[in-house]
């Protein structure tokens, strides 16, 4: 900063951007191993802070200084407040929300770039247009995902041929993109239609996606927003944005395919299948008194399913040799993880061997259960993977399923007509006894009835997960 000429300043800023990019890379790498993950985000955080501070001295900023500061404080302050106050359980939708913000910011940059006087009409301009398209799709798409996960949007209007409309919209948007890319004049009307179509397209992509596929679609939008940021970075000739955006775009894509693979669902299936969506709309979520509301097919199933009370369930657990706990979203919802760990410790003191089996997509996000169990203090070695445990279920005495449904549904394995057929499940039905702690008699996220519940070796323990686990704890204590 000794040399205050514009070019000297610029090379100083670019050097800072370079360090920020290095920090992002190392941060991301660290975040992909559990032991160093936390260090990773701190490094990346320093990179971001450095890049933001030096940008205040950017020679291209010649006006609106106050506006910049106000906008920064407003955005940062609101996000700070929400991110701090939100429950750890609601983290998945917060990722969607902040992802929407990033995509929206990239789209806004594209708007400014394309309404400048004296457009170049070259390849760089084309990249700004494509970045605007991706950013807009990521914006509305993630926003809708946020609303859906939050439960604000429970009933969504249905349209047939949704995908056809969507492909049509996207084609028109791409056509306009071509015109916008290589034109030296700005076309306000075309620009408006272009962004409008891109925004609608994001909504149409997300509408039919079943909630159990939400993590994958959010990850996809994350990759899109990243790529949009990278492309705007190229257009603005900003190396920090270029590198960080493209790295996120590529790693986000990788993460998306890893998640899709964990669910055994090709990404194209998730984007273009309506089945999960329609079923979900019809049956709704797992509500306590859904049986009172309407009589439907699965009421017969629930009449056949046998229930158990906490007293008998506790005895079953206390005298078992080996118990496997399978947590699901129900555990997250009622914050039962702490109690569950208390129950585990109690059982272990009696000599019962207890482990936790985590399905890759249990809960609302991959790793959701791991995070919650870690919060409760469950050590890593007690947590087993789907592949390791599935071979051993036949030697397990009691499986305690806490608020999980689709991930233990044998239909995914046995019934080729089921819409979740092919998804890997935990084969809990192979254990001698299965006790399912369940809030109500509804179906799981996919809206499919669960043949596990009517199995001869399965008993249902109805009630809120935390309350039920608490009663199990007191009942097990009684036994001693």
């Amino acid at each position, binding site marked *: 900063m000794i040399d205050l000429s514009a070019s000297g300043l610029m090379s100083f800023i670019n050097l800072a951007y370079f360090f920020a990019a290095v920090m992002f890379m190392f941060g991301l790498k660290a975040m992909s191993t*559990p032991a160093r993950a936390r260090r990773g985000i701190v490094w990346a955080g320093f990179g971001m802070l450095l890049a933001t501070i030096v940008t205040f001295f950017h020679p291209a*900023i010649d006006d*609106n200084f106050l506006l910049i500061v106000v906008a920064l404080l407003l955005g940062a302050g609101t996000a700070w407040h929400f991110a701090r106050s939100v429950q750890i359980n609601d983290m998945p939708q917060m990722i969607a929300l902040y992802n929407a913000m990033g995509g929206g*910011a990239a789209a806004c940059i594209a708007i*400014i770039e394309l309404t400048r006087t004296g457009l170049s009409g070259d390849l760089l301009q084309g990249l700004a247009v494509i970045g605007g398209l991706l950013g807009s799709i990521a914006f509305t798409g993630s926003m809708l995902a946020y609303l859906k996960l939050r439960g604000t949007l429970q009933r969504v209007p249905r349209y047939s041929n949704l995908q056809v409309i969507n492909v049509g919209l996207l084609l028109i948007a791409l056509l306009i993109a071509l015109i916008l890319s290589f034109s030296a004049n700005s076309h306000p009307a075309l620009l408006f239609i272009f962004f409008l179509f891109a925004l609608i397209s994001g909504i149409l992509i997300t509408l039919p996606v079943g909630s159990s596929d939400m993590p994958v679609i959010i990850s996809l939008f994350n990759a899109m927003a990243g790529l949009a940021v990278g492309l705007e970075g190229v257009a603005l000739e900003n190396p920090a944005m270029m590198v960080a955006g493209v*790295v996120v775009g590529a790693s986000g894509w990788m993460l998306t395919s890893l998640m899709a693979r964990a669910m055994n669902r090709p990404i194209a299936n998730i984007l273009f299948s309506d089945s999960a969506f329609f079923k979900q709309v019809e049956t709704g979520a797992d509500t306590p008194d859904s049986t009172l509301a309407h009589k439907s097919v699965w009421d017969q199933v629930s009449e056949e399913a046998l229930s158990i009370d906490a007293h008998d369930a506790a005895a079953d657990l206390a005298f078992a040799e080996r118990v496997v706990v399978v947590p699901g979203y129900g555990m997250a919802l009622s914050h039962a993880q702490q109690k569950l760990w208390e129950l585990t410790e109690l059982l272990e003191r009696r000599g019962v061997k207890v482990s936790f089996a985590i399905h890759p997509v249990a809960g609302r996000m991959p790793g*959701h259960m791991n995070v919650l169990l870690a919060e409760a203090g469950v050590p890593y070695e007690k947590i087993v993977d789907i592949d390791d445990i599935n071979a051993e279920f036949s030697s397990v005495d009691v499986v305690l399923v806490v608020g999980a449904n689709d991930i233990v549904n044998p239909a995914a394995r046995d019934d080729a007509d089921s819409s979740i057929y092919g998804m890997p499940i935990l084969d809990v039905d192979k254990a001698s006894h299965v006790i399912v702690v369940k809030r109500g008699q509804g179906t799981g996220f996919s809206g499919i009835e669960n043949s596990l519940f009517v199995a001869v070796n399965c008993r249902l323990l109805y009630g809120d997960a935390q309350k039920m686990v608490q009663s199990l704890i007191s009942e097990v204590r009684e036994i001693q």
Partner: protein
Amino acid sequence: MESLFAFYVVMLAAFAGYEVISRVPTVLHTPLMSGSNFIHGIVVVGAMVVLGQAESTLQLVAGFLAVMMAAANAVGGYIVTERMLEMFRANVDEDEEYSQDS
């Protein structure tokens, strides 16, 4: 020539991003998604620059929104990721080898 240089950067960055993530345990999928979500918050620097040059009302509004949303992306993304990873710390400290066998 200079725009071609950008393409080299983009190509290498894409490759690096892909490689960095390729072997990651399921446990970290969500925090990692959140972390990369935070990293594209770098859009804030571009947003600041374009708002600094904005002239028309449309540009001012778009620029203001861009900076605001980008700042929310960065700050919110950081806190969410940090809060998630916070939960791994207690366990991980005593078990450093975990990273090898996962």
